[in-house]
């Protein structure tokens, strides 16, 4: 045990002296209250500590203690459905100790120690196991088997292993080395969990959101950023992805944002069904909530706590999606702490290591071959919200994230003002995963899926050019085919790209339905183009097809196959009638 004394207190940063042997990143207990903190600087005799709780009332001379270990996340069955603060304290345990308002000094085991889990071995006695091997599983939730992995630094021949009900503190197996295996393990959050290797992305994270699945997909194991000014839809987007994307596990980090938004997740997720498994969404979700008014140092940590949990499920062979809302608040926490350390500031006051911190974080995303003999693969997809000051994307956090992320979903204040949601700008956003995902789309979404995508984008680009002309000379002076194009573009924007996250049907759009919707629009466009030689555009405008297209997204998802093929046929038939 290393024991020193407080020498200075300045907000969330406390300095101490006399802590010989202490290392950077070691966990410490500060003051008589034993507030949790982490060493962030060691300079000669003195260390700087970021404290995860409010430091009001601390005095110079109070003790600071450490056992020389870093902050460790606790990993094991029981994580799913939990809500933690930035240092993995269960918020429900904190409530039980301190009531509705969070007070200092609360503690709580991240995982329930009394609960018994039914362990089913898959490894046998006599088998040699080492880091990453699966020795058995626990049915953590109806849809998720929690695989029990051999932790780092442990290997040997199994001498005992047995099916049965165990608590997390009881060994489920023992090795010839004398080492015991538990269902729970610890991991230092700032160190990426090791893997065999990263592998190429080849499968998209299907989100049920048309603008992403069709236009700007993110690969499983990839990363995407969602920058946008306030109120443009970052959180709604992140929550939509947490609800509807086809990940096995979702880790949702509310990093320096609103309390009510976390409550919203807690209120809604237990009642929403995962469209693939029919299970409540909460059963696949882990929440980390360090809201804006909770201690700023724990906000900095929340990102690492979250991604460590994500990697842990990845290591079991799952596809994990992690949402961080907002990475800017994390960067600001870094800046605030750095300022208190009186470090040399870089751009906009952020510390010079901002770029490398952001890169290190996004680098923890990936599709990987996991450690372990069965060569299973898993993935962590990272989707980070960015909140640029003034909505100006040239600022350091956006720019540094842009350099790394594979998909850029730029939110646009003007679209949000006109209530076009999701307010993703289709002209400036991009995905670098398209080439890698091409085969997947062709095989699974339809051979002409990407071709249709291209056509839609082309129409929207053409619209942009025409709009400039309209602004000079007015719409009436355009040629008829151009007028038609403008109206089709509007249909694409209003009736395809727009997707109301709060509509009971439209909130989630299966890929097949997306396919048919594109097809219907393009089919109708083609038919109208053909008709132009025979009837006037005025008459084309009056076709009922326009209105039908505007309603198709409300077709119940389970009627996709029964509705659309006929709908598309009728659309073209009606158009032919109009000519006749």
């Amino acid at each position, binding site marked *: 045990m290393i024991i020193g004394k407080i020498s200075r207190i300045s907000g969330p940063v406390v300095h101490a002296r006399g802590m010989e042997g202490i290392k950077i990143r070691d966990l410490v207990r500060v003051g008589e209250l034993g507030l949790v903190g982490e060493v962030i600087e060691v300079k000669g005799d003195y260390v700087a500590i970021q404290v995860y709780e409010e430091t009001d*009332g601390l*005095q*110079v001379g109070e003790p600071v203690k450490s056992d020389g270990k870093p902050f460790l996340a606790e990993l094991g069955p029981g994580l799913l459905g939990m809500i933690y603060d930035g240092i993995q304290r269960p918020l429900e345990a904190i409530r039980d100790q301190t009531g509705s308002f*969070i007070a200092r000094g609360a503690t709580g085991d991240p995982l329930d120690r009394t609960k018994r889990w039914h362990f089913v071995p898959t490894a046998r006695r006599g088998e040699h196991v080492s880091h990453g091997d699966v020795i058995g599983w626990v049915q953590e939730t109806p849809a998720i088997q929690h695989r029990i992995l051999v932790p780092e630094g442990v290997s040997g021949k199994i001498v005992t292993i047995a099916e049965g009900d165990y608590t997390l503190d009881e060994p489920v197996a023992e090795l010839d080395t004398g080492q015991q295996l538990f269902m729970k393990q610890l991991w230092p959050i700032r160190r990426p969990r090791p893997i065999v290797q990263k592998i190429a992305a080849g499968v998209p994270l299907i989100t049920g959101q048309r603008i992403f699945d069709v236009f700007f997909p993110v690969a499983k194991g990839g990363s995407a950023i969602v920058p946008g000014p306030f109120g443009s839809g970052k959180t709604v987007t992140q929550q939509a992805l947490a609800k509807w994307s086809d990940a096995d596990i979702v880790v949702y980090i509310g990093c320096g944002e609103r309390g009510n938004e976390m409550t919203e997740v807690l209120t809604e997720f237990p009642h929403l069904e995962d469209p693939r498994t029919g299970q409540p969404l909460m059963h696949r979700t882990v929440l980390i909530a360090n809201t804006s008014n909770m201690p700023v140092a724990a906000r900095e940590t929340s990102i690492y706590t979250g991604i460590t949990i994500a990697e842990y499920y990845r290591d079991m062979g799952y596809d994990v999606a992690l949402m961080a809302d907002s990475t800017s608040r994390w960067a600001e926490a870094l800046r605030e702490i750095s300022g208190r350390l009186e470090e040399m500031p870089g751009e906009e006051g952020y510390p010079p290591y901002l770029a490398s911190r952001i890169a290190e974080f996004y680098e923890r995303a990936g599709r990987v071959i996991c450690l372990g003999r069965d060569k299973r693969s898993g993935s962590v997809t990272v989707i980070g919200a960015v909140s640029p*000051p003034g909505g100006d994307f040239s600022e350091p956090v956006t720019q540094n994230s842009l350099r790394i992320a594979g998909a850029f979903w730029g939110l646009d204040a003007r679209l949000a003002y006109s209530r076009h949601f999701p307010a993703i700008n289709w002209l400036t956003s991009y995905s670098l995963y398209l080439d890698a995902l091409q085969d997947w789309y062709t095989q699974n979404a339809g051979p002409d899926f990407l071709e249709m995508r291209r056509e839609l984008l082309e129409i929207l680009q053409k619209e942009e050019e025409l709009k400039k002309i309209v602004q000079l000379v007015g719409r009436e002076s355009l040629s008829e085919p151009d007028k038609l194009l403008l109206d089709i573009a509007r249909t694409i924007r209003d009736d395809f790209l727009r997707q109301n996250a709060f509509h009971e049907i439209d909130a989630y759009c299966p890929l097949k339905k997306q396919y048919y919707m594109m097809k219907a629009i393009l089919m109708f466009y083609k038919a109208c183009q053909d008709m132009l030689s025979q009837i006037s555009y005025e008459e084309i405008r009056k076709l009922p097809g326009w209105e039908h297209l*505007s309603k198709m997204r409300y077709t119940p998802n389970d009627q996709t196959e029964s509705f659309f093929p006929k709908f598309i046929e009728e659309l073209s038939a009606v158009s032919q009638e109009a000519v006749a």
Partner: protein
Amino acid sequence: MSAALYAKAHRTITEIKGPLVFLQSVPGVRYGERVTLVDSAGNKKSGQVLEVGEHAIVVQVFEGSDGLDKKGTTVFFSGDVVKLGLSEDMLGRVLDGSGNPRDGLGEIFPEVERPITGSPLNPVCRQQPFEYIETGISAIDLMNTLVKGQKLPIFTGAGLPANRVAVQIARQVIRQSKEELIVVFAGMGITSREYNYFYKEFQDSGALANSVLFLNLADDPTIERILTPRLALTTAEYFAFDKGRDVLVILTDMLNYANALREISSAREEIPGRRGYPGYLYTDLATNYERAGIIQGQKGSVTQLPIVTMPNDDITHPVIDLTGYITEGQIILSRELDRKGFYPPINPLPSLSRLMNLGIGKGKTREDHRQVQDQLYALYAQGKELEKLTAIIGSAGLGETERKIVRFVERFESEFINQGEIPRTIRESLELAWDLLSEIPRTELRRVEDKYIDQYWRGARP
């Protein structure tokens, strides 16, 4: 503020700089503790410990350091953080920015004392807001509904009538609630003209009896403004969560609050962020704005209506920007509408109530509310674009439908938005909305379902 026993007296001031006093370190001083400074003439000022080290202590003085001198000033450390004494007798009272009576009605005897910084509400204990508050203003009730437990700021510009809107809302919601609801008002750096306006309005409308006012005027100490919103919010939490009342907190002007924070930060020579504001402005504002909400299984709520002036009408100004990033939407006043003589000059396009969905619809307002709002938005946005276009190419370039939409914009602004001070019920607002929508061909109403069009639309059928 609470009386405290000042056990430790010290005369070790080494430097006085702006609102900061630097002392030689003395043992036993706690970070964040409240101090009292007494100058040689016997004048008292209050302050708070900002930093403690082995050699030095930094104290911020709320009333400013004017009149303090290094030699003659004594510093008393209270051993406790800054607290506010609370009691139901605060209703009807006017207090200064530090919480002392300024209405001459005598001292208030506290029932409890609470640290003014408050504690974060545990997200698992929050109740998701679910009930709307009728302000009587169509541009809010129909377009950007205020919900109990929400924090919804008003972004205003110099000379725009934000205060009038705020007072109108306060009056209306107290009346609507049959005096169940109370208002806690915090004025930071407001002029005495504004103060007289508020006081008179609160008094004349009878709202004062259901209100607590904290006032820091323009010529009061600037640093005191750091305390004022916290005092108001501590009071609000007391009435909401101890006494089960619905509380509306009006904070005006949070720009002045942020400027006080900037003053301290620059005196401490901290690395400035945008426009000189400290890097922790977001966190600091959030610790105030997040003190709104409802607790599960408990009566009472805190709703916040902060008012923030946009310097030069600049919505990207850091204080505005960060406020927008923390609050649950914003109501934006428009100079253009104000110039046209419209009141309240609320520009619905950039305004937003993020919790609106939770408070409206069937059984709350009306089943068509969401879609009507959506449709009004779409038409107004489109119409404003068309207006710009007309300015360039003239209205001859517009089609017939487009002309109707431009006409819609005119009526929307001059009738729907420009309602004056006469409150409308939500039903009246919806009726007026359908009246406007009925001039638009039904095929253009793409955001409303047929069943509502059939029920409410009164336009000519083709």
